[in-house]
């Protein structure tokens, strides 16, 4: 009797695994328009309302190699306002509406450069598990030290020209990055589990391309000014304007 029960169990287990495997593979493909066919676009700007705060100058005299590397005086980058009040370094991304589809990371690595003892770009966005190339174009030695909440914390010394490759496994918006050698250095890395994100350019412009038709929650994040949220519905082939306004 016991042996019979054992046999039954043995046969029951296999279909259970098949069901699990099938349901997992189905998650990726079913009901999902190919991003290439969608050709939708959400295009707009992030603006700063009111008088833009003046950036504070940064004193780099503690490291002569930093001071020497700069042709223009360094200034803080926590709020960078460009032409017509356009707000730079805002991360605009889909925060809801993509359900649980999974997106493989792109082959192309994202690059974070240390130049003139500041981070270029100041705010970087990439996908989880996408390669992150860290470049030190300065003569001095930096240590690049992200301080995440939801990812592993690492801290690597990087002399000039030495290659460094890392990645982040989980979504996190956004990870502060610092250099302990040069305490004025500060940047952010936003990590996404999908490819629908953008960082505004120096005039506040951004574009989210090729979203599959649907209704989405779009979030705009700024390191000092917080987040703004909008709901938007896009149909196939549709281009929609989308603007965000930040206040201090």
């Amino acid at each position, binding site marked *: 009797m016991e042996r019979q029960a054992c046999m*039954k*169990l043995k046969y*029951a*287990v296999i*279909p*259970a695994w098949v*069901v699990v495997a099938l349901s997992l593979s189905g998650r990726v493909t079913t009901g999902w328009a190919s991003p290439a066919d969608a050709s939708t676009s959400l295009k707009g700007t992030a603006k700063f309302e009111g008088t833009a705060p003046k950036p504070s100058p940064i004193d780099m005299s*503690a*490291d002569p190699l930093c001071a020497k590397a700069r042709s223009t005086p360094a200034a803080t980058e926590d709020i960078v306002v460009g032409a017509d009040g356009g707000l730079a370094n805002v991360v605009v991304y889909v925060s809801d509406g993509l359900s649980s589809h999974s997106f493989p990371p792109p082959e192309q690595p994202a690059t974070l450069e240390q130049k003139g003892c500041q981070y270029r770009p100041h705010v970087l966005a990439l996908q989880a598990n996408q390669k992150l190339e860290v470049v030190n174009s300065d003569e*001095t*030695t*930096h*240590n*690049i*030290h992200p*301080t995440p909440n939801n990812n*592993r*914390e*690492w*801290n*690597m*010394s*990087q*002399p000039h020209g*030495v*290659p*460094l490759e*890392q990645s982040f496994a989980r979504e996190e918006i956004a990870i502060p990055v610092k250099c*302990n*050698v*040069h*305490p004025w250095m500060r940047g952010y890395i936003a990590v996404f589990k999908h490819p629908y994100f953008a960082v505004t350019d120096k005039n506040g412009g951004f574009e989210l391309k090729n979203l599959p038709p649907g209704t989405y929650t779009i979030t705009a994040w700024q390191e000092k000014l917080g987040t703004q949220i909008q709901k938007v519905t896009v149909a196939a082939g549709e281009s929609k304007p989308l603007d965000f306004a930040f206040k201090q």
Partner: protein
Amino acid sequence: MRMKITLASSALVVTLLWRVAGLAQESHIGKLVGHANRGKALYRRYCVFCHGEYGDGTGESAPYLDPKPRDFTKAVFKCRSTPSGSLPLDSDLYDTISRGVHASGMPSWKPLLRQERADLVAYIKTFSSAFQEEKPAAPVPIPPEPPSSQESIKRGGELFQSLNCWSCHGKDGRGHGPSAASLTDSKGYPITPFDFTSGTRFKCGDSDPEMFRDLVTGLDGTPMPSFANAMTPDQRWDVVHYIRSLHVSRKHSEVKIQSAGQ
């Protein structure tokens, strides 16, 4: 039949979960196997006052301590044999418990039995899901140490300058470089760089191979970075020799070598 499949598969899932959870609640240090359920009682007796009931470093004594007790829920540890960003090995946690952490409130727990320390490691690992989700990377290799020499100390001194060690540790190694005042740990508390003239009782051990290892792994959760990409193994030994030569009050062979050349 369908009912049976559901039953069977859920039984299987339960068994698997139980198995995974069971493994995560063990620690393996050499042949020693620690068990979290036994570690819990020990933790509540010896560790809870500082590290807190939930392992988040907010025990009753925590406000009076500097540096603060480790927050185990973050699974970030200073003293590891694994690369920066990796979880520690069980043996790393065991070594820290045994050694204690110099210049902190953490004493050496050698008075506890080896088995008890292993049990504590197993329990500490239950405070973070990271130990179930990830595996620690392979420990960093430590090649044999070349003999110290005046040239090696000199090269180490040059690296100490060119790699900006001095930004925090100071040009003379006294721990008061230009960035020293700005340093914080991962919780935002101020942290002071090591004064190499004061001694060599480093947080993660004071032998030459341990210093070499610290240069490769960095001390995660602190401003001390990993120099894994920044130096060759020979260069790391040079820096170890140089740091030894800074400890003027105790006669390390490096101090003698240095003064003989002057």
